[in-house]
């Protein structure tokens, strides 16, 4: 079905605001949806589905957020469900914790990765521990949305990848989508989760597109997905490193290397089973992420792969990551980012081993 035909069918179906009688169409009409729109729709659908869901943060009301992810929500649901807060990240998260204690399901936005740090104590000392310290009496169904990562020409403090700080804290789930489908479904799953979820949004992918019809369903939190099947090595990536890995795999195929690309989707819980199964098949693993490599999440992946697949490995587990420097200014960031070329270099080394 072509996009034009889809639009025509959809127009007919709702002509005059009245659904035409008769059987439902055999296939849902597909339209072009951006990653940002998928997130926005997930928030809208969650607000519509459950009165306990509230959305708040800096500029999320009338403005619709600096990335427009909350566009239209305040107008549609009113300022009791979607509201602006004072510019105070610890208070935003602390308020969410207090609201969750009372039975609400808050979804808060931290405007940028590096501006979420004032909320870190609330995250580590309270959000992560409240269920545990109260023997389950005070669960924390809170979602923290954080746009993260670089490659958008952002000036200082606008391009951090802070996932390892969070993933190191027991009690929190850490999720990051790489596809438009997952942007929708993982956010719905995060909001539905009884546990706190830090939802890292790869901001470079906000304007990526897919032809689909929302709502969509994908896998649950805690499961990885094979984005490309291959036999020679596994590229393990998440967030905006997934398209980099996929592009590298396409190039590598020109050299005769058949690479598998695994999208983690969820850093916590970590899908050991999927990672192990893939590396057992390929015998080689290369981790790709944008955050600095030293003590980064890739180190955890490499350790886990080594512990589980040591006797199957044909080469050391390699990491292709951001450099161990403060995130550089935009004119220099292409040196920092794990590029397709750097991934291919790692592939060469792994294959030569």
């Amino acid at each position: 079905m072509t996009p034009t035909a889809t639009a025509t069918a959809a127009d007919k179906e709702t002509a005059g605001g009245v659904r035409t009688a008769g059987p439902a169409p055999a296939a849902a009409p597909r339209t072009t949806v951006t990653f940002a729109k998928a997130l926005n729709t997930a928030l809208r659908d969650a607000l519509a589905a459950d009165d306990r869901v509230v959305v708040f943060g800096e500029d999320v009301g009338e403005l619709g957020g600096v990335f427009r992810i909350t566009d239209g929500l305040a107008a549609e649901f009113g300022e009791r469900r979607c509201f602006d807060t004072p510019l105070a990240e610890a208070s935003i998260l602390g308020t969410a914790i207090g609201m969750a204690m009372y039975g609400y399901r808050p979804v808060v936005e931290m405007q940028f990765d590096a501006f979420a740090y004032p909320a870190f104590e609330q995250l580590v000392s309270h959000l992560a521990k409240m269920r545990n310290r109260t023997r389950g009496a005070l669960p924390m169904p809170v979602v923290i949305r954080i746009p993260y990562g670089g490659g958008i020409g952002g000036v200082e403090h606008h391009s951090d990848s802070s996932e390892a700080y969070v993933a190191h804290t027991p009690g929190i789930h850490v999720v990051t989508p790489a596809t438009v489908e997952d942007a929708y479904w993982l956010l719905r799953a995060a909001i539905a989760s009884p546990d706190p979820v830090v939802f890292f949004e790869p901001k470079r992918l906000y304007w990526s597109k897919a032809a689909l019809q929302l709502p969509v369903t994908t896998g649950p939190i805690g499961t990885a997905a094979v984005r490309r099947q291959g036999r020679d090595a596994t590229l393990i990536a998440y967030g905006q490193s997934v398209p980099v890995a996929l592009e590298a795999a396409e190039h590598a195929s020109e050299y005769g290397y058949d690479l598998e690309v695994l999208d983690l989707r969820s850093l916590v819980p970590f899908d050991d089973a999927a990672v192990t199964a893939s590396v057992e098949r390929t015998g080689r693993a290369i981790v790709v992420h944008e955050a600095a490599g030293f003590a980064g999440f890739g180190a955890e992946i490499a350790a886990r792969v080594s512990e589980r697949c040591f006797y199957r490995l044909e080469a050391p587990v390699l990491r292709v990551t951001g450099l161990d420097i403060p995130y550089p200014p935009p004119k220099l960031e292409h040196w920092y980012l794990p590029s397709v070329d750097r991934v291919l270099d790692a592939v060469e080394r792994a294959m030569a081993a």
Partner: protein
Amino acid sequence: MTLLDLPSATGPHHPAATPFRGDTDPLRYLDEHGAPVEGGLRPSEEELAPERLMEVYRALRLARAFDTEATALVMQGHLAVYPSSRGQEACQAAAALAIEPQDWLFPTYRDTAALAVRGIDPAEALTLLRGSWHCGYDPKRWRTAPQCTPLATQAPHAVGLALAAKLAGDPVVALCLLGDGATSEGDFHEACNSAAVYQAPVVFFVQNNQYAISVPLRKQTHALSLADKAVGYGMPGVRVDGNDVIALSHVLGEAVRRAREGEGPTLVEAVTYRIQPHTNADDATRYRDRHEVDIWLARDPVDRLAKYLTATGNLDDTLDAAIGEENTRYTTRMRAELTGEPEVDPAEMFEYVYAAPTPQLRAQRQMVEQGMTADEAGE
């Protein structure tokens, strides 16, 4: 009478131009000898009713008995640590009595006596300080948050809970307990500011006991009054004698009423004193004179109300002794529950981390349980 009608503790009467930061200007009803002060607060007849004051007095005595017993228990090794609230019983009792069962209390580690006055079983209240779990009581049943140890971080929670209640249309108030040191924290500022913006039904109750561990108030703030900080947030701030339970109950009662009736948050500063060291592990002789402690011992909040009740013919030795016996039964039970080795279950460490355990936690739990089995088998 509203708070705004009260004689101002921070207005023109305040000796702003002098370095003196004495305790002469907080609002009061009773002087140090338990006699009503001239020109002081004028509580309502209801607030001064003998039955009401006897309830308050019993709460003061319970707080004192609880604190004394807990201090003995920690010295004897039955608790891991105990931060005493001796000298702050008026604050502890007034806080617990100012709110209704549907309201929420947000206590700190020094507010265990307030938990006891709220009705929480002493063994459950002391679970954190005994070290057998973190929070030993059911926060939902008691509408009492877990005792908070990172300073001021519970204040934004109180704001969030109050905002949630406001959005739900429930007449619920959040009473947040803080110390003087906590007012230096960023979370205190963020919480006060947000509460005022949201007009959330919160009362921030600062027990200014003059010390944050060893650091005296003069090193904590250059402000002459912690209550003054409220001005910057657009909420009322009231400074009250924290050892005068009648004045304190009046001020807190009014702050709770304002919150409940949609008039927004209030900051209350109670000027009091921490008689004991920070905890049993602290040595207060390194940073303060015994003389200073003696001055404050003479301002004892329990004695003060006792003198007033005796002078007004509502308390005699017989009744006082009966209250003492009641408390002895309470502390005997408390001691029985808290001596001996607490039962702990290592598997519980994994039980509540997530709603459903991750595969990794299932594996670690199994590892610990296998270790337990080996220990039990003497391997």
